[in-house]
């Protein structure tokens, strides 16, 4: 790894948070640096930092201005962020089962038409991808994955849907994602998984961590229904692969 990493931008998010910005774009190298700084702060806590929130391109650092001020923390973060990016201690690899198309993925046919190919080809391409959890945000467990092949990049829908199902697997822009709770979305819905990335009273409550790797595997509707019942009872149903 190069010894001279460029300094991130230190942007104030009010008087109690700093956005450490590595890039303005969705950029895999920037996301690696976000996750690396996040790990560094977990391993070597800085007094006054209360919570960190990784996103694609920046790390949001919440802090208590009674304990540390903006200038001091900003300088510290710049220094820590320019350390060489260490390899992640261990990367977890998940296999997430997905039922594609039909009632479970109502946009699959349209996506295929728009991209001038078949639904089968879309599914094959989506399944072939090796994805990384770039960030989790917006609503509990909503996991944004990087690594979507360029062929599948599509602008978001003009009119976001106000309600999309729990477990939706979708694509939007250069990303794909696993949505946990039912809710609004402007992405294209390819399928559903029974996996709950967030489930109260289950250990762990949140399944995926930023930095985890994810692959999708297709299942039929009957298997989805069985897995959905099992997942409702607290089973994880996602498979942790040997890395």
């Amino acid at each position, binding site marked *: 790894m190069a010894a001279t990493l460029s300094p991130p931008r230190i942007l104030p998010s009010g008087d109690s948070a700093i956005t450490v910005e590595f890039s303005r774009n969705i950029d895999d190298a920037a996301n690696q640096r976000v996750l690396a700084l996040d790990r560094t702060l977990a391993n070597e806590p800085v007094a006054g930092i209360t919570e960190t929130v990784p996103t694609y391109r920046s790390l*949001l650092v919440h802090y208590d201005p009674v304990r540390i001020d903006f200038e001091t923390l900003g300088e510290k973060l710049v220094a820590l962020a320019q350390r060489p990016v260490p390899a992640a201690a261990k990367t977890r690899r998940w296999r997430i089962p997905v039922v594609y198309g039909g009632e479970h993925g109502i946009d699959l046919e349209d996506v295929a038409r728009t991209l001038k190919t078949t639904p089968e080809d879309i599914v094959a391409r989506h399944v072939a991808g090796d994805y990384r959890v770039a960030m989790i945000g*917006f609503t509990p467990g909503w996991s944004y994955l990087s690594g979507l092949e360029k062929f599948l990049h599509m602008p978001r829908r003009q009119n976001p849907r106000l309600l999309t199902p729990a477990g939706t697997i979708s694509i939007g822009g250069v990303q794909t994602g696993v949505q946990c709770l039912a809710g609004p979305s402007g992405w294209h819905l390819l399928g559903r998984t029974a996996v709950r990335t967030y489930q109260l009273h289950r250990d762990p409550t949140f399944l995926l961590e930023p930095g985890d790797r994810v692959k999708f595997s297709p299942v039929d509707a009957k298997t989805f229904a069985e897995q959905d019942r099992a997942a409702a009872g607290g089973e994880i149903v996602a498979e942790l692969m040997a890395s």
Partner: protein
Amino acid sequence: MSKLVVSTIGPASSVQDGGRHGAQRYGLTPSGAMDPLALAAANTLAGNGAFDAAIEIGPFGAAFTAREGTVRVALSGAPRSADIAGRSVAWDSSTTLADGETLTLGFARGGAFSYLAIEGGIAGEPVFGSLAVNARAGLGSPYPRPLQAGDELQTRAASGAAERRIELPAVAEGAIRVVMGPQDDEFGEEAKALFFDSEWKISATSDRMGYRLEGPVIKHLHGHNIVSDGTVNGSIQVPGNGAPIVLMPDRGTSGGYPKIATLMTADLGRFAQTPAGKGFRFRAVTMAEAQAEARKFAKLLRTLPDRLRGIENFDLNIEALRDANVAGSAVSAVDACTWQAPSADVLARD
């Protein structure tokens, strides 16, 4: 155990506390009180921890009845008329309900949210250390949703402690203070000048996720799409239509609209209490000023117990308060019932 039964209640009322911290990295928003100082004041009066769970009451009136024992409660936040069986209760003070007695509260005046704390707190099962209601995530205890008539909050019997009032500093007047950024460079000088020189109003379609602002259109330099990054309470994001939205405690943890500025911590509660339709302005302050104010605010929260006073010295003011209560009941209830309409554009933008 005693319990406090919700006899009547309006929308936008729920159990809230200091919020649920540490899981924003998983998309779980903190929630918590819209006006942290008012929550802390009510709890301090009730003898609780400053950020224990209490009832956050939206702009409409409400009534609560003690059952199976006495219940000591305390009121702070947006003032309202308050009485128990025709006996007027002073604001910013504690009072005790005998078994079967009902406390009746009017509309919020000069604010939006009031807090009713219960001595001994509210019995419930915390998730991530909090009972705060986050309806979209199905979180909150004892009810994972806004309160409804008939709901019962379990608590302990009143201790018989002497009633107290609390002397709070006068609420700061004038512009809501903000720190520029994190994406103020997405806006030109003209847009920034317009933002600070204009009078704004809170739209009636605001809710605990975000307050939409009515005023001029704020234009972006390079369009309204940025790559999503993290949000905080008080982030002022500007979506494609140029109408800013101030993110509140039930916000999404990340957002993809440029954020022109961020409310300073000490002004979050004051802003949350701005009644729908009342004009206000923003003023930019330096980071040093905002952090000095944040430290002062933290000290105020820590030293609230020093501001408790015996109730006996209060007689002189009761008449004045009663007059005030009668004077202005329905000021801020305008369109209050729309406060929980879904915010599609807050919601649908990832």
